């Protein structure tokens, strides 16, 4: 009976560890795409600003909007990470 209880405890801890592992890998994977996307957005915005400095204000506002939309995916990954890790 004690052995069974210990086995359940070990299995429970293993499940917790696997959850933490999945959370870490999941967040890492979720950050790849938005990272590349934000790179594209900011890079192209800098190109636009360098070519046309007088339009820098408008480009900057649009760039922040683009970053916000792209970043949302990474942040959803972060929220999933928190849910998997801390609940």
């Amino acid at each position, binding site marked *: 009976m004690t052995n069974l209880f210990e086995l359940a405890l070990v299995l429970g801890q293993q499940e917790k560890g696997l959850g933490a592992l999945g959370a870490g890998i999941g967040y890492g994977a979720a950050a790849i795409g938005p990272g590349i996307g934000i790179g594209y957005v900011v890079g192209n915005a800098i190109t636009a600003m360098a070519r046309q400095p007088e339009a820098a204000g*408008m480009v900057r506002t649009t760039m922040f*909007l683009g970053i*916000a939309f792209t970043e*949302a995916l990474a*942040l*959803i990954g*972060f*929220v999933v990470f928190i849910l998997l890790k*801390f609940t």
Partner: protein
Amino acid sequence: MILAALTFPPIEELLEWKDIAGIPGFNKVSLLCVISAIIVFVFFMVAGRKGQLVPKGVQNIAESTVEFVRESIIMQTMGPDGLYWMPFLLTMFTFLLVANLFEVVPIIQFPPTARMAVPFPLALLVFFLFLGMGIKRQGFGSYMKATLVPSGVPKSLYILVVPIEFFSTFLMRPFSLAVRLFANMLAGHLLLVTFALLTAALFTKSVMVVLLPLPFAMLLAVTVFEVLVAVLQAFIFTILAAVYIGEAMNPQH
């Protein structure tokens, strides 16, 4: 929690707050929300009490805030038609700015927006506002048509496009608006807590103390970065609210 022979408080200390003065549900987050609302109220009261032609002091700061919201948020996204929304967007921007900046204020060091209970009602409010604005300006049928059916799509693709548009407009918009603010502030808070705890835990008599400058330098850098994030997230939340409401008001934008 023990890591490299350093002791840390358990993670629950970070996630749950005790009630203040025994009032159920009134904890540090609610208190900070009330305080930031009062700060915004008092700030604009003091600034608007005696309107001077040449502004100075508090009035100067308030006027540049108003001008920032008008020029960078409303005129860029809604046009002069959207100046009607000025009070709402200005209040929202300043409230979020003060609430976010509590993250780096010493002693307080906690942004109330890092709890889903604060950004989610605000996002829901924005959602109902742009829904109501679209229905009021265009009527229910034509608003749904303008939102769900993008122009220039062949009729055979409607079965695919309409559910996607419905999902992205009516479910994903309020959800991502709330999650963006919440996750940014929580991530920043966790970063600050991690490096502050590491610095405090390394402050010992053992040989590990030689590592102390590394997390401390990182803590300083992250603090500066979080000031930027706090301002930027208040700006992004407000400008997205303006974009959504402006799109509902003028569909062919």
